[in-house]
């Protein structure tokens, strides 16, 4: 076998702390290495060309590229060796950037280490064999998880692209956080006026199946062919009959249910439709408050319902769907403001979250759009906005910036002036983050046209004084203490990953960071992909975003799905397990341990033997370790390959 080794400078990224020329020279002495050189940028066009030329001129049949992580450029170089006429799996990479040059300054040690990594790559490559992927059919249906604006956008774009969409929404209506907003920055146009039509499009679109008040129970399979189980939670209302007339809401004797849509400002009937524009507009019974369930008798709604839709005996229902791709758009939840004891959030009625304030501003809100403070319904004259409550604060393990708070606070200050002309707003802030089209102009208007007083400093504490709330903080620009006697305090609660995100990530087999946000496969170059083929991300599930960014990601994810589905067939990674029938003694242990059911026992000339189902095998290699006689081997990660790497490393 003739192997070519290409050691990349990556400009100065590698060359800076690794003597790439020396590594190439050393590689010359490795078994089977017929050619070695160092290249400036192996991933650049000239870089790839030099590889291709060397393969052709030197008649190489395998290539080792020592450069960045294979998680970055393995596909790039596989394509390159393929263009050179080799099988794309006759490539190995040595990660001498992320794992060497970037983590140490000792040039001698780094060079030495880099040579070692090249050595094991060569030893592995010597035992590689050409592989050809199997192709398989695609189920051209996508599941979008989450009916917020990002999910809605993804669903509509996919559906308009001509593929069937299954949209799963946890609550009884789509719309997400945006549907709770009154106006949107920086244009101050009505949130529901721009979101509403999209929501309607969703239910009316022939290609979209909507499961509201439902959650993903289980997902199995692989890109192109997932099987999902969706749990439709019991609403105790037969939605096929419910017309959303709302009669039951009026007649319901129990009005003490939590009003989730209004962020807990006020209460709701035990049978409820969250808001007038809800999609679907169907009632749901809150069994925790419904007398029929608590006392076992009532049945008012059942009596009044003109369509006889009420069904107290309803149970959760599991529906199964076959899909080919997933878009996770599960959004965010608000930071729990009560964690800041000194602010009194949750204890003081007039210390509320920004989203609650949105409901107070909203014409469809509990106060009909008139700003009344929760404690006594009085109209507040002095409103204090506190920024970064649960953002950029290590002490509550929320070091990140939630991104959109600065903007909506400016918006809320403006709206406050609109609603109450003789009011005065104060904004306690750390920095103003307004990077975006017309954003900074917008915050300026809040200050200059609407006279909101921006105070640069953190609020130390809030305490009651009479019917006022004293907000004490520092004005770091003036270098003075500052106290404001407020009628209402609005805390800009930060964003955090939606409740249940990690659990969903585990079902989807994607990674999530320590805060529960889903991990994209590359922070810059693959922002909506994940490391699990066929699973994409949109909106705040991946990290805090404002509406335009979320909508943009929704469309981006849709584009990825459409791209995936535009292929005739998909190719399965051929790096999967193979059974050596003569060695297999048919003990079936591999069958027990395979997480994918990719191994089944067959009868081979009267003997039980294991067989791998190629399209189902994901290439984890659990079976290879399970098999005591090494009859199951994972292609490109065979025992002999790993043993050879170990051997190479143990020579010294």
């Amino acid at each position, binding site marked *: 076998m003739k192997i070519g080794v290409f050691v990349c400078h990556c400009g100065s990224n590698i060359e800076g702390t690794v003597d790439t020329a020396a590594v190439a020279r050393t590689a*010359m*002495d*490795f*078994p089977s*290495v*017929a*050619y*070695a050189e160092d290249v400036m940028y192996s991933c650049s066009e000239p870089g790839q060309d030099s590889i291709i030329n060397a393969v052709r001129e*030197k008649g190489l049949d395998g290539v080792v590229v020592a450069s960045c992580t294979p998680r970055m450029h393995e596909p790039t170089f596989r394509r390159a060796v393929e263009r050179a006429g080799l099988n794309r799996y006759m490539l190995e990479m040595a990660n001498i950037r992320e794992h060497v040059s970037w983590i140490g300054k000792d040039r001698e040690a780094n060079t030495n280490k880099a040579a070692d990594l090249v050595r094991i790559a060569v030893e592995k490559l010597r035992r590689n064999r050409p592989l050809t992927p199997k192709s398989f059919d695609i189920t051209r249906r996508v599941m979008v998880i989450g009916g917020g604006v990002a999910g809605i956008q993804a669903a509509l774009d996919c559906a308009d692209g001509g593929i069937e969409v299954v949209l799963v929404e946890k609550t009884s209506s789509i719309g997400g956080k945006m549907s709770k907003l009154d106006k949107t920055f920086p244009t101050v146009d009505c949130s529901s006026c721009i979101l509403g039509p999209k929501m309607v499009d969703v239910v009316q679109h022939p290609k979209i199946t909507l499961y509201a008040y439902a959650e993903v129970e289980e997902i199995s399979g692989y890109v192109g062919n997932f099987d999902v189980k969706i749990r439709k939670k019991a609403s105790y209302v037969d939605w096929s009959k419910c017309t959303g007339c709302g009669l039951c809401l009026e007649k319901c004797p129990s009005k003490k249910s939590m009003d989730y849509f209004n962020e807990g400002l006020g209460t709701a009937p035990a049978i409820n439709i969250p808001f007038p524009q809800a999609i679907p507009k169907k009632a749901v019974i809150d069994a925790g408050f419904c007398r029929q369930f608590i006392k076992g008798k009532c049945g008012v709604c059942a009596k009044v319902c003109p369509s006889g839709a009420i069904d107290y005996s309803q149970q959760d229902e599991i529906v199964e769907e076959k899909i080919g791709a997933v878009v996770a758009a599960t959004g965010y939840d608000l930071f729990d403001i009560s964690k800041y004891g000194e602010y009194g959030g949750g204890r003081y009625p007039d210390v509320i979250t920004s989203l609650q304030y949105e409901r107070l501003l909203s014409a469809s809100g509990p106060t009909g759009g008139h700003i009344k403070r929760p404690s006594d319904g009085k109209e507040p004259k002095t409103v204090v906005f506190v920024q970064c409550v649960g953002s950029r604060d290590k002490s509550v393990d929320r070091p990140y910036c939630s991104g959109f708070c600065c903007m909506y606070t400016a918006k809320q200050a403006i709206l406050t002036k609109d609603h109450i002309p003789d009011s005065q707003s104060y904004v306690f802030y750390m920095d103003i983050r307004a990077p975006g089209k017309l954003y900074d102009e917008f915050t300026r208007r809040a200050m200059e046209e609407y006279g909101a007083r921006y105070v640069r400093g953190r609020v130390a504490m809030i305490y009651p004084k009479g019917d006022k709330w004293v907000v004490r903080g520092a004005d770091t620009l003036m270098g003075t203490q500052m106290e404001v006697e407020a009628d209402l305090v609005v805390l800009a609660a930060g964003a955090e990953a939606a409740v249940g995100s990690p659990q969903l990530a585990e079902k989807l087999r994607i990674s999530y960071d320590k805060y529960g946000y889903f991990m994209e496969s590359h922070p810059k170059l693959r922002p909506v992909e994940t490391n699990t083929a066929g699973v994409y991300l949109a909106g705040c599930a991946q990290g805090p975003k404002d509406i335009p960014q979320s909508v943009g990601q929704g469309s981006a994810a849709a584009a990825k799905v459409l791209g995936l589905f535009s292929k005739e067939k998909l190719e399965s990674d051929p790096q999967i397990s193979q059974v050596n029938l*003569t060695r297999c003694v048919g003990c079936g242990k591999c069958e027990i341990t395979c997480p994918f059911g990719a191994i089944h026992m067959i009868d081979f000339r009267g003997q039980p033997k294991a067989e791998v189902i190629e399209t189902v095998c994901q290439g984890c290699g659990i079976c290879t370790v399970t098999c005591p006689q090494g009859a199951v081997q994972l292609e490109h990660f065979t025992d002999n390959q790993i043993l050879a790497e170990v051997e190479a490393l143990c020579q010294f």
Partner: protein
Amino acid sequence: MEAAKFLSDAALRPWLDELATKHALVVPRREGDAIVFAPYDPAKPLDLSRDATIPPKNPVFPACEELMRYSYAKNPENPAQAGLTLEPLVPMGSTVVFGGRPCGARGFTIFDRVYLTQRIRDPYYGARRESTAYVTLACSDTGNTCFCHWVGSSPSDTTGSDVLLTPVAGGYVAEAVTEKGSDLLKSTHMADAGGREKEALAAKSKALEALEAAPDLGPAPKSLLAVFDDQDFWVDMSAKCISCGACTYLCPTCYCFNITDEVRGLDGSRLRTWDNCMSHQYTMEASGHNPRPTKAHRLKNRVGHKFSYYPDIHGGVIACCGCGRCIKSCPVGVDIREIVLASIERATAKPQE
């Protein structure tokens, strides 16, 4: 051949010390609960109480012998080219094996007919054979698994030995069997036998008389061929065999080997290691076909080779020295004597066609 000598118990260790200065000396020593032939160590005791667990064949036929080393030297101008350097490793130096029993020494005379013929001479075996001398201890009685006299040997057989020591009062009578042997006896630690030869002779004949009558194995070669295709017989005989290599690896007359290259990077070595016909791999063909798929086939070969096929081509010499290790050390007590006798019985029982 010069006259017999007397080696007193007191002179034994000094003599061994002396031998150790001239030769690589191996002696039976207790390791754990086994007795093995180990390099002589003046500080450590010998164990001559019984025949060693492992036969004294290693010195002439090591369990693993490095035949040669090789390495590739790359052409700096064109690393695609590499020069190969070979280093054959022919064994050097002389070895003396002390304290084996007649059966053990007789064992590798079986090898000679295979490795040292007119046509073919195995240089490695040849070199070791020539440079190795055996100082053997005659047996004064026999154990439950001994059957040297069945196969044409005896407790005082000198075949393969260079010196035979016969225990007598106060020491041993030492008789040189070969030139090599008489050289070993040229030592100040050796006294004149001084009439002790008779005592030695008496001891030998006493051991011979003590033997139970040996069955006639004459019909064995033909019988084993007769039952060759009698699979039921062999399935029955091999039922308890677990196909391990204990019998063959401990057999003084088993000489099969396997050759493998072990390579590290650009360097490699070619190894010759004991192989054993009880193993499935022994006859495994590259195609995956195995002409001896079951332990019945394999056991048949072991017994057949020793008592039929080998004698057929080597003037009736049975390729077994009757040491009984294969019986004593078999994890499940397979008894080759039973099998041979059973085959004779079976063959005579059913008419030859």
